[in-house]
């Protein structure tokens, strides 16, 4: 098991290190990610949404659907634990 695990981890590690070679440097302001959508959000979010925290603006407004999913995930987890562990009560 251990050997297999090491082998799998090694395989994944090689892919990851390989991928890093071509990544933008750490903190690179010219990276594609920062230039494209990142810059767009920073530019427009206050005008669009009107709150200071850009993260919250994206979280609740631009990507509100993701956050909706997130709440559902939490809800599901709660129901799951109820289904798995709860022994008394109505649920």
């Amino acid at each position, binding site marked *: 098991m251990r050997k297999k695990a090491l082998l799998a981890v090694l395989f994944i590690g090689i892919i990851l290190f390989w991928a890093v070679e071509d990544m933008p440097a750490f903190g690179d302001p010219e990276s594609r990610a920062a230039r494209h959508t990142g810059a767009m959000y920073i530019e427009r979010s206050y005008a*669009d*949404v009107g*709150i200071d*925290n850009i993260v919250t603006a994206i979280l609740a*407004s631009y990507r509100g659907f993701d956050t909706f999913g*997130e709440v559902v995930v939490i809800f599901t987890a*709660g129901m799951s634990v109820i289904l*798995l562990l709860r*022994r008394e009560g109505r649920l």
Partner: protein
Amino acid sequence: MRENVVIRTVVRLAVPFIQIFALYVIVHGASGAGGGFQGGVVFASSFILMTIAFDLAYTRRRIGSRGTMICSALGIAIYEGVGILCILYAGNYLEYGVIEAALGIPHLHGYLIDLVEAGIGITVMAVMTSIIYDMANRGGRSA
């Protein structure tokens, strides 16, 4: 035990502050670090603190399984409700802008986000509490 009294007293004092802080975190999400999720977790942690200091039954008297159930549904319902409301105001799902435009209230967009964050907070608080209840409840019909 003697320490218990100290702990309980401290907890009794601390819990309201934690809860107020949680509410602050939820509302503060719009202007700084924080938000519904973090606030909800902080709120839930007040119940965890109670459970540790007292026992499960004590906490359950504050908010029982019915309460957690209703709150966890309520939070999502708020979120959904805001989304559907936007549709009723002839926008897309979760398009807060249309409500702001329709009602003509400035900054409503931000307030609606606060509302949604509150919804998230309620659900997270309820679910986390519920999970802790179920995890801490060691079998039997106690609590």
